[in-house]
C-alpha cells in the first residue's frame, strides 16, 4: 500500500517538473494545443451540421402522426389524390377526432423560387396548401408573429426558418406566384421541424393558382394513439378504391434525412480524421522536444531513484493534459461559433430547402474531447518510451 | 602569394582601439587604447587570463565585431566602417578561423565541411573538389574525407577545422584556443601543423591561447591584461 502511494507521489513529482518547464517551451506547446483545438473545432463543427439537419428532420413527425402518399411515390412531389380519395382516408378508423371531425389534412406541395438571403441566388422553397386540421397534425404548431391566414383568402403564413433564410418572407412581405401576389400575414413555429422551412396557404387557394382542380398530393393525419397505426394502415391499403402507402411521419422524415446526414457525416469524419493525423504529428513533435529539453533533468531524477514507469507516465500525462486543453479550447470555439448557426440546405427527396440550425450537442463535445485525448495518448506514448530508455550516465553529462 | 599590403605596412594594424560592452547601465571597457601591429608572415601568440579580452580582440581583427573607437586596418581594409555585406565578403577572402570547439557542421561530412567556404567563391564543382582534396592532404586527413564529425576524434576534428580555414588560401589565420579542448598529444599535432603552415606556406597566424606550451611555438608572444597589451607576462 505504501509502495503504491510512494509510486503515485513519484509520478506526481515528475509530472510537476514537466509542467513547470512548459513556459520554456511556449512555442511548441502552443502549436500542439492550438493544433488539437483546430481538429476538435472542425470535427465538432462539421458534425454539428449533420446533427442539426437530423434534428430538424426528426422533430418533424411524432409517432402518432401519419402521412399518406400514392403507391410508387417516394415524395409528396410526385404523389396525387382526388378529393373523394382524401375523404375516404379521413373517415378511415384509427384517427384522432376533434370537434370538427377527424384530424386529417389533405395537402398540396409545390416549390417556388425565392432568393436565399445568404447568397442572393434562387432556392427551391416549399409552398404547402393545407386544410384546417394541419395545425393539429403538427406538433407544437404556434403562430409567433402576426396571425393565421384567412380561409379562402389570398394570404400566406411562413415558417420561422424560411422567414429568416429567404428574401421577402418576413412579416408584411409578399409572395408572388404567377399573377397572384400573396401577403405574408403570420410567422409560425412547429417544434423545430421541417414545416418551419415552408410557406403555408389555404389548399383551395393554391389549387386555383396552380390550376390543380380538386386534387391533392398528400394527407397528413393524427392517430387516436400510436397503436392505431396498423389499424389505419390496413384500412387504407385494403380499400379497393385506394392505392396508397402509409408512413409514420417520424419514419418518413428519418428516411428523408439519411442521405444528407450520411454525406455530411462521411465527409466530416474524413476531414477530421485527416486533420487528426496532422495534429498527431504536431503532438509527437512537441513531446519529443519536451523529452529532449528535459533529458538531463529526467536522467537526474532517474539517478536519484525515480522509476522508469513514473517517467513514462509523467510524459504521457503531460501530453494528455495538453491535448485536453486543446480539446476543451476546440469544443468551446466550436460551441460559440457553430451552435444554433442558422442555415438552409437541399433536401433531395423533396427537392426543396430545409432550414435548420447547427447543433453542438454534449455528445459531440464528448466525441471531440475523446479524439483530443486519443491524440494526446498516441502523441505521448513514443516520446515517453524514449524518455524512459535514456541512458542515465550519458544524459547526465549533456548540457 | 600576392600580398594585399605593401611590404612596409603591417598586415594587421590596431591603433588606439577601444571596445566597450554595455550591461544595463554599466559600461565594461574590455579593450582600452590598444595598439598592435602584426607583420606579414608572423606567428603571433596572444596570451592572457580569461576575461582579459583575448577573444574580443581576435573577433575585432577577424571582422566579427566592430571597435567602439580607434582605427583597425587588416589586410588593407579599414574595418571600422565596412558595411555588413562587404565585411562578410572580406572575411571570406582574407580570414580563416579555427575554433576551440572546432565548430564543424554535424550534418556534413569532413570534405563537405571543408568545402563550405568555397561555396562563396566562383569555383565550379570540380575545382572545389580539387581544393578540398589539397586542404585535406595538408592536414593529413584525406583518408577520413567521408567521415562525419561525430565519428572523428577531437584532434581529427580540429584538423578538419584547419583544413576548412585554409581551403580558400586566406591572408590571415585566426585561431581561438585551437588546442584548448585537446589532450597533449593531439594538441602537439595541431601546433606542428600550424607551425608548418606558418613556415612552409608563409601563413600569417594569430593564435589566442592560455597555454605556455602552445605559445612557445609562436614567433612572438604578446600578453593582454585588463584590456591592455604588454610584452611581458603578468602574474
Amino acid at each position, binding site marked *: 500500500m505504501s509502495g503504491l502511494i510512494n509510486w503515485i507521489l513519484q509520478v506526481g513529482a515528475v509530472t510537476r517538473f514537466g509542467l513547470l518547464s512548459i513556459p520554456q517551451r511556449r512555442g511548441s506547446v*502552443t*502549436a500542439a494545443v*492550438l*493544433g488539437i483545438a483546430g481538429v476538435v473545432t472542425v470535427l465538432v463543427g*462539421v458534425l454539428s451540421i449533420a446533427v442539426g439537419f437530423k434534428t430538424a428532420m426528426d422533430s418533424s413527425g411524432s409517432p402518432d402522426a401519419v402521412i399518406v402518399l400514392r403507391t410508387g411515390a417516394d415524395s409528396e412531389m410526385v404523389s396525387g389524390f382526388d378529393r373523394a380519395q382524401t375523404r375516404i382516408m379521413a373517415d378511415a378508423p384509427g384517427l384522432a377526432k376533434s370537434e370538427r371531425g377527424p384530424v386529417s389534412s389533405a395537402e398540396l406541395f409545390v416549390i*417556388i423560387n425565392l432568393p436565399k438571403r445568404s447568397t442572393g441566388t434562387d432556392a427551391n422553397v416549399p409552398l404547402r396548401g393545407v386544410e384546417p386540421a394541419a395545425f393539429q397534425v403538427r406538433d407544437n404548431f404556434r403562430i409567433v408573429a402576426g396571425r393565421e391566414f384567412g380561409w379562402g383568402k389570398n394570404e400566406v403564413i411562413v415558417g420561422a426558418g424560411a422567414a429568416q433564410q429567404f428574401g421577402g418572407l418576413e412579416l408584411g412581405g409578399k409572395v408572388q406566384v404567377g399573377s397572384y401576389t400573396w401577403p405574408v400575414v403570420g410567422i409560425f413555429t412547429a417544434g423545430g421541424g421541417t414545416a418551419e422551412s415552408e410557406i403555408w396557404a389555404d389548399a383551395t387557394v393554391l389549387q386555383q393558382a396552380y390550376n390543380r382542380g380538386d386534387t391533392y398530393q398528400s394527407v397528413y393525419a393524427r392517430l387516436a394513439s400510436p397503436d392505431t397505426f396498423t389499424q389505419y394502415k390496413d384500412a387504407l391499403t385494403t380499400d379497393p378504391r385506394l392505392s396508397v402507402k402509409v408512413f409514420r411521419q417520424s419514419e418518413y422524415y428519418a428516411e428523408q434525412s439519411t442521405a444528407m446526414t450520411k454525406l455530411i457525416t462521411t465527409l466530416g469524419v474524413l*476531414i477530421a480524421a*485527416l486533420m487528426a493525423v496532422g495534429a498527431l504529428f504536431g503532438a509527437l513533435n512537441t513531446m519529443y522536444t519536451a523529452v529532449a529539453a528535459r533529458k538531463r533533468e529526467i536522467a537526474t531524477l532517474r539517478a536519484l531513484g525515480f522509476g522508469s514507469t513514473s517517467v513514462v507516465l509523467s510524459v504521457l500525462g503531460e501530453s494528455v493534459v495538453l491535448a485536453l486543453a486543446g480539446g476543451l479550447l476546440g469544443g468551446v470555439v466550436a460551441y460559440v461559433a457553430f451552435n444554433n448557426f442558422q442555415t438552409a440546405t437541399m433536401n433531395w427527396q423533396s427537392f426543396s430547402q430545409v432550414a435548420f440550425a447547427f447543433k453542438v450537442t454534449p455528445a459531440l463535445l464528448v466525441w471531440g474531447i475523446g479524439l483530443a485525448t486519443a491524440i494526446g495518448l498516441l502523441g505521448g506514448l513514443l516520446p515517453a518510451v524514449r524518455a524512459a530508455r535514456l541512458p542515465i550516465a550519458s544524459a547526465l553529462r549533456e548540457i | 602569394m600576392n600580398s594585399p599590403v605593401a611590404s612596409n605596412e603591417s598586415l594587421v594594424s590596431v591603433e588606439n582601439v577601444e571596445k566597450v560592452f554595455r550591461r544595463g547601465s554599466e559600461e565594461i571597457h574590455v579593450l582600452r587604447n590598444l595598439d598592435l601591429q602584426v607583420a606579414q608572415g608572423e606567428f603571433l601568440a596572444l596570451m592572457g587570463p580569461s576575461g582579459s579580452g583575448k577573444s574580443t580582440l581576435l573577433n575585432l581583427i577577424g571582422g566579427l565585431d566592430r571597435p567602439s573607437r580607434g582605427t583597425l586596418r587588416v589586410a588593407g581594409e579599414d574595418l571600422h566602417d565596412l558595411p555588413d555585406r562587404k565585411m562578410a565578403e572580406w572575411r571570406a577572402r582574407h580570414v580563416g578561423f579555427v575554433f576551440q570547439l572546432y565548430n564543424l557542421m554535424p550534418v556534413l561530412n569532413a570534405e563537405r565541411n571543408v568545402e*563550405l*567556404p568555397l561555396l562563396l567563391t566562383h569555383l565550379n564543382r570540380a575545382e572545389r573538389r580539387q581544393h578540398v582534396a589539397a586542404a585535406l592532404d595538408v592536414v593529413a586527413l584525406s583518408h577520413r574525407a567521408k567521415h562525419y564529425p561525430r565519428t572523428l576524434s577531437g584532434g581529427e576534428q580540429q584538423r578538419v577545422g584547419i583544413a576548412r580555414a585554409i581551403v580558400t588560401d586566406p591572408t590571415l589565420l585566426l585561431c581561438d584556443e585551437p588546442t584548448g579542448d585537446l589532450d597533449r598529444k593531439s594538441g602537439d599535432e595541431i601546433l606542428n601543423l600550424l607551425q608548418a603552415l606558418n613556415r612552409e606556406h608563409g601563413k600569417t597566424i594569430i593564435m589566442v591561447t592560455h597555454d605556455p606550451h602552445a605559445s612557445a611555438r609562436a614567433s612572438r608572444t604578446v600578453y593582454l591584461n585588463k584590456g591592455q597589451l604588454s610584452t611581458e607576462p603578468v602574474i
Partner: protein
Amino acid sequence: MKYFHLVWSNLGRHRLRTTLTLLSIVVAFILFGFLSAIKQALVGGISVDGNDRLIVRHKVSIIQVLPASYEPRMEAIPGVAAATHFTWFGGVYQDPKNFFMQCPVVPEEFLELYPEILLPEEEKKAWLATRTGAIVGRKSAEKFGWKIGQRVPIQTPVWVKSDGNHVWEFDIVGIFDGKNKNTDTTPLYFRYDYFDEARRNVKGQVGWYGLRVQDPTRAAEVAALVDAEFQNSPAETKTEPEGAFVQAFANQIGNIVMITAGILGAVFFTILLVTGNTMSQSVRERTGELGVLKALGFTNGHVLALVLLESCLLSVIGGLLGLGLARLMTSGGDPTGGMLPLFFFPTRDLLVGVVLAVALGFATGIFPALQAMRLRVADSLRRM
C-alpha cells in the same frame, strides 16, 4: 545549386522531426485536394462550352412545366442562335439507390447545342433512326454494365405511360463521352417524340430550355428579351446564363465555397503553427552553426536564403506528395456512389496547391530566417 547539399543535410539533422513535419504537411495537402474535389463536384459543372448558353425555366420554379410551343418563339428572338428543351424524368434503374439523371431531348438539336457530348457518328445515326433509342454516358454505362443494343427498363414515379405503366424501356444505341473532365457522363438521354407520344398526361409540356446566343457578351440582353417575350402569359419564364444557374443550384446545398475556405483556413493555420514552430526550433538549436557560417564569410542574405530554402523545400516536398496522393485518391471518382458525379481534383486547383505549398514554406520560414539573419556573429559563436 551548390547550396542544395547544405540545405538538404540540415533537413536530415532530426530525421524524426522532419518526417513528422513533412507528414503533417502531406496530410494538409491531401485535405486540400479532397476539398477541391468536393467543391468541383458541387460547382464545377460550369463548363467553358456553356458560356454562350442560357437556361430558360418557369418563373415560379423549375418543377413547373413550359409549353413545347415556346421553342419557335424563342428561336425568333434576335440574338438567339438555337434552342432546345429538356424535361425532368426522375427515374431509377432497378433500385432507388441507382438514381441518375434521364432526360427526353430532341437529338439533333441537343447534340448541336451541346458539343461537349461526344457521340460517334454511326451511333448518332442509330439514335436518329430508333424511336425508342437512348444514349447513355460512359460512367453510368460502366456502372450498370450496359452495352449497345441492350434494352433497359427505367422506372419513374413522375411519368405514366398511356397504358398506366410507370416502367419505360429504352434501347441503348450509343454511349457518349465528355469532351472535358467536367462534363457529366452519368445521364441518359432519350427521344422526346417517343416520350411525348407515350406519356398519358401533360403532353406538349417540357421542363426547361437551353438556348445558345449569337454573341456571349450580349447574353444578359438576350435573357431579358426572352423573359419579356413570355411576360403576362400563363407560363412566365426566368432566363439566366448556364453558369449562374449551376452556381445557384450549388448554393442551394449551402455556401460550399465559404465552408471549404473555412476548413482549409483552419487546417493551414494549424499546419503553419506546427511547421513554423519546428523551423524556429531548429534555427534556435543551430544558432552557433549559423554564426560559424557567418564567420566563414556567408552574408546575411545567404543565411536568410538558406533558412528560407530549407522551409520551402520541406513544404514543397510535403505539398507535392500530398497533392499527388490526393490526385491518386480522388481518381477513383465519386466516393458517395451517385451524389457527386463530377468529383475529381482539377489541375487548376493542383497548381493553386503548388503555389500554396511555396507560400506555406515562405510563411513558416520567414520569421526564423529573419531571426537567423539578425544573429550577431560574435554572440552566436559564444553560444556554440
